[in-house]
C-alpha cells in the first residue's frame, strides 16, 4: 500500500503541518495571555491544534488508523464548532480556527478533512480484509 506521505500526500501533510503550527501558535498565545476572557473558544482552539498535530504526525509517519481517527475528529470539530459559532455568536467572542466553518482561513479547514478522509480511505478494501 502506498505511503500516506508520498505523492499527493506530500502536499496534504504540508497543509496539515501549516495548520498544526498556526493553530498551536494561536491557541498558545490565547491561553497564555487571555485565557479567562473566553474559555470556551480558547479550549476549542487548543483541541483544534491537538487534532492538527496528531493528523500531521499520523499522515507523515504512515499511521493510517490514527490518521483516520484524527481526520474524523477534525471533521466533526469543524462542523460542530462552525455551527455553534453561527448559532451562538455570543459564546464565540474571539475566533478559533473552526469558527464560521473556517472562514478566516478561506474555508480550508472545512475542505481539509474531506480531502484527508478521501486520501486515508483511498485504496482500502470496503470489507475489512485485514492485512
Amino acid at each position, binding site marked *: 500500500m502506498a505511503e500516506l506521505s*508520498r*505523492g*499527493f*500526500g*506530500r*502536499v496534504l*501533510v*504540508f*497543509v496539515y*503541518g*501549516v495548520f498544526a*503550527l*498556526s493553530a498551536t*501558535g*494561536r491557541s498558545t*498565545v490565547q491561553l*497564555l*495571555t487571555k485565557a479567562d476572557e473566553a474559555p470556551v473558544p480558547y479550549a476549542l482552539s487548543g483541541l483544534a491544534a491537538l487534532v492538527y498535530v496528531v493528523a500531521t504526525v499520523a499522515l507523515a509517519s504512515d499511521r493510517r488508523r490514527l490518521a483516520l481517527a484524527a481526520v474524523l475528529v477534525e471533521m466533526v470539530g469543524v462542523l460542530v464548532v462552525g455551527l455553534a459559532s453561527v448559532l451562538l455568536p455570543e459564546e464565540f467572542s474571539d475566533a478559533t480556527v473552526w469558527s464560521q466553518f473556517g472562514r478566516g482561513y*478561506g474555508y480550508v479547514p472545512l475542505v481539509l478533512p474531506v480531502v484527508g478522509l478521501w486520501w486515508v480511505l483511498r485504496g482500502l478494501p470496503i470489507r475489512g480484509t485485514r492485512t
Partner: protein
Amino acid sequence: MTALQIGISAACLLGALWLVVLIVRDRRPERWFLTAMLVLELLMVVHLVLGVVRLTGDGGEGVAAWEYVGYLVGALLIIPAGVIWSSGEPSRGGTAVLLVALLVVPFMFVRLADIWAAGG
C-alpha cells in the same frame, strides 16, 4: 501592507503561477527557481527585522506583540520548510508543496496587516 510586503507577495504569486505551469506539465522546478526562492527567503529575513523595528517604534504600542511576532517568524519559516519537505518527493506532490508555501506567505502578510490595523 508595506511596500516590501507587496513586492514579496507579487514575487510569490508569480512563482506560484510558474509552479502551476510546472505541475500541469509534470515537470520539476529547475535550479534557478530554487535560487530565486533563496533570494525570497533573504527578503523574508529583512522583512522580519523591519517588522520588529516597526513594532518597537512609534505606533506599535497597541499592537498584539506576540501575535505579530508569531506571524513574522512563521512567515520566515514557511519557505525553508516547504523546500525541505518537497525535496524528498520527485513528483507533482513535491512541486505542489512549494506552491502551497508560496501562497501561504501573502496570506500571512494579510494577517500581519490585520493585526497591525486592529492595534494601531
